[in-house]
């Protein structure tokens, strides 16, 4: 990391004594000021006032100083403050469980919009929706989907009388936290009261399930909801390769030092031959999606190269409509271009999601709506 210019540090110091410390992790004055303000707001009463920088010493200064110190050591602000806003939700965060990222919020919001539309436009009568979220972590994706598909406010009538969302995770920490998050957001009235029945979080070893025969996969996913087809499988699985995770790789120090490796790097016991360690979970997810006849599989990926690898893995399995979504929500659809082509990525905006459509009716609808959009 390049050294901070001394001028910047002295300027920061003049504005607030805490800022130079925060600069270590934030790297620029504006984000340091923002973070300081958020920490101040967390220790004080929420202060809505226009004063810049300066403030008087108060009884909370000790708490603030310790927050700043922790932050300067690289600890994520979400672990310090204990939460991360996610859509209209407030997601509790604790060490041992991955912190929700803004990119995830963006595509989850888009995904909810799609699900709502496809249900209305592709099959007018459907009042059911069944979603599975693998590697759910804090539960942020499952909970945000619920808040968007069945909004808590009565005037915005949800389209679905029956919404089922199951979140799976291998980590007991994650399962405890996701259950807490359901109740926390119910208390905040950020979730519809039905969320208690609609959403459940369960323990599951995804890689192990993918090794099972097809029948076992079906009974695992359908034992409660046999009557319903599985509409959507969504997952933000571990996807960082050991090389990227090493010091000097693309994974930042703060992430390596404070967030759980379990949620970031797939295990080195390679269950799928010929598949990179970073991509192990995608192989598992595709097998499960195909076996369970899910209509749509949506996975988060780390970068464009990984997105292209996942696309090719999916192609090998089935005639599917494959899309890659970028960080700015634009869609690069499967044009059948060769494996290594980066066509559609000239703007250097990273790929973030691979969406694999399996249901013929949904594919038809999707193609039409993409044409309409352009």
């Amino acid at each position, binding site marked *: 990391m390049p050294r901070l210019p001394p001028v910047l540090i002295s300027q920061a110091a003049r504005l607030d004594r805490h800022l130079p410390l925060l600069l270590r992790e934030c790297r620029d004055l504006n984000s340091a000021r923002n973070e300081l303000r958020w920490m101040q707001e967390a220790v004080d009463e929420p202060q809505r006032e226009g004063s810049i920088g300066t403030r008087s010493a108060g009884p909370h200064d000790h708490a603030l100083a310790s927050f700043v110190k922790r932050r300067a050591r690289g600890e994520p602000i979400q672990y310090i403050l204990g939460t991360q806003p996610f859509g209209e939700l407030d997601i509790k965060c604790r060490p041992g469980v*991955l912190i929700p990222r803004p990119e995830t919020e963006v595509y989850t919001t888009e995904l909810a919009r799609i699900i709502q539309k496809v249900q209305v436009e592709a099959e007018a009568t459907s009042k059911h929706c069944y979603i599975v979220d693998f590697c759910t972590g804090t539960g942020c994706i499952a909970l945000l989907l619920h808040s968007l598909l069945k909004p808590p406010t009565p005037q915005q009538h949800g389209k679905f009388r029956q919404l089922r969302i199951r979140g799976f995770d291998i980590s007991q920490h994650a399962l405890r936290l996701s259950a807490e998050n359901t109740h926390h957001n119910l208390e905040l009235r950020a979730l519809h009261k039905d969320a208690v029945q609609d959403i459940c979080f369960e323990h599951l070893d995804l890689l192990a399930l993918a090794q099972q025969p097809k029948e076992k996969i079906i009974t695992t996913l359908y034992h409660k909801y046999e009557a319903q087809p599985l509409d959507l499988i969504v997952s933000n699985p571990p996807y960082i390769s050991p090389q990227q995770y090493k010091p000097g790789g*693309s994974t930042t120090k703060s992430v390596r030092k404070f967030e759980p490796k379990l949620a970031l790097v797939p295990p080195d016991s390679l269950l799928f031959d010929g598949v990179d360690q970073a991509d192990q979970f995608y192989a598992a997810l595709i097998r499960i999606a195909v076996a369970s006849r899910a209509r749509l599989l949506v996975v988060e990926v780390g970068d464009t190269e990984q997105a292209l690898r996942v696309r090719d893995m999916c192609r090998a399995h089935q005639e599917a409509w494959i899309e890659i979504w970028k960080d700015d929500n634009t869609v690069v659809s499967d044009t059948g271009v060769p494996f290594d082509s980066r066509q559609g990525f000239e703007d250097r905006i990273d790929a973030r999601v691979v969406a694999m459509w399996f249901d013929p009716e949904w594919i038809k609808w999707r193609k039409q709506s993409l044409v309409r959009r352009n």
Partner: protein
Amino acid sequence: MVAKQAIRRWQSTITTNSEAEISPSLLERARKIAAEHSKLSGANAENYDMATAKRIGELGPVTAALKEYEAARDCLTELNSLLTDPSTDRELRDLAHADLDTAQSSLPRLSAALKTSLIPPHPFATFPALLEIHPGAGGSEASIFAHDLLQMYISLCTRLGLPATLTSYSSDDSAPGGSPALSEATLELSTPGTYDLLRTEAGVHRVQRIPATEKKGRTHTSAVSVLVLPALPEQGGGAGDGDLNYDDPNSDFYVNPADVKADTLRASGAGGQHVNKTESAVRLTHIPTNTVVKCQESRSQHKNREKAWNVLRSKLAQRRREEREEQISNMRRSVMGGVGRTGREDKVRTYNYSQSRVTDHRSGKESLNLDDVMSGGAQLEVVMDSVREWMRESEVLGMLADDEAKRLQEEKENRNGHGKK
């Protein structure tokens, strides 16, 4: 030739019109309004209707002001005729003289009130406001002065008891000498009506002083531009009528989502699980006008996005409004020179530090207490009030110009009509 004469004639009416007088066209306008008022009041007495009641409420002030003005003028005529009548006895004459003075002195006030009542309220007058500050020419000195101006407005708000939130602040890290400096700031005033209060501040503010960074003691001139936008309620008025229904394409605040490109700002490089940037800044670009809005103040991306959308709506509405005003003022300019409005590019005020003087170029008001102005004191309000008065006068002149344009048009049509015969 005729047009030129008309201008001269019209200008002469303006100059000979003492403050007490009111131009015939404005008077006619007021009478029409009063007639409509009484007609509608009559109609509503029989058949009550909400929309009519609203319109009656709008016309009420003009009607009342006209009534008072006409009463005073009639009284004056009466007194004058009494005085000129040779048969009036002396005692009555003395009384009439005394009354004449009071009547004459009240007339300017009443005619001013009538003129003011004729000015339609600014469409955004009741809105809360967003005040944006951008340094212009002058390098880091401009950024430093931008910060000073921000402090000035914050102090003003504090003194007036108006809640103000700094919703966006980007410091200019390049300013030497460690002086606080900004590259962009937005102050949000949540009190309804603050748009009308701050409307006087939009434009380019110029500073003349020896910057802290200047070693040879030379005076520099720098500029900072101030934008005043109407702030919008978080939620639109929904299905109701009017401008606040954001889904109504006729509303000033309507923005077609297809025209907007949204992205979350992140330094290039790996994202997703690889990094944990706290920043959830949102940037919206309105492609047809290339208007860019950025919001990064909240930890919540969702809130930043809502905020950015609101600011974008405000900006585009302001722009539409300015375009309309531009058209109107062009039309007015074609009838008479000079009357117009000051747009965002115009220099509105100069702060001269060596002379401790603040000059507003629109009203011509000067304050020799720069310190008090810069600390948001009463002197700043005095300057702002002078601008408000200037705006009112330009608005009245503008209305006259409109009437003149209409009259010329009619004259022309009549002439053409005759020509054909």
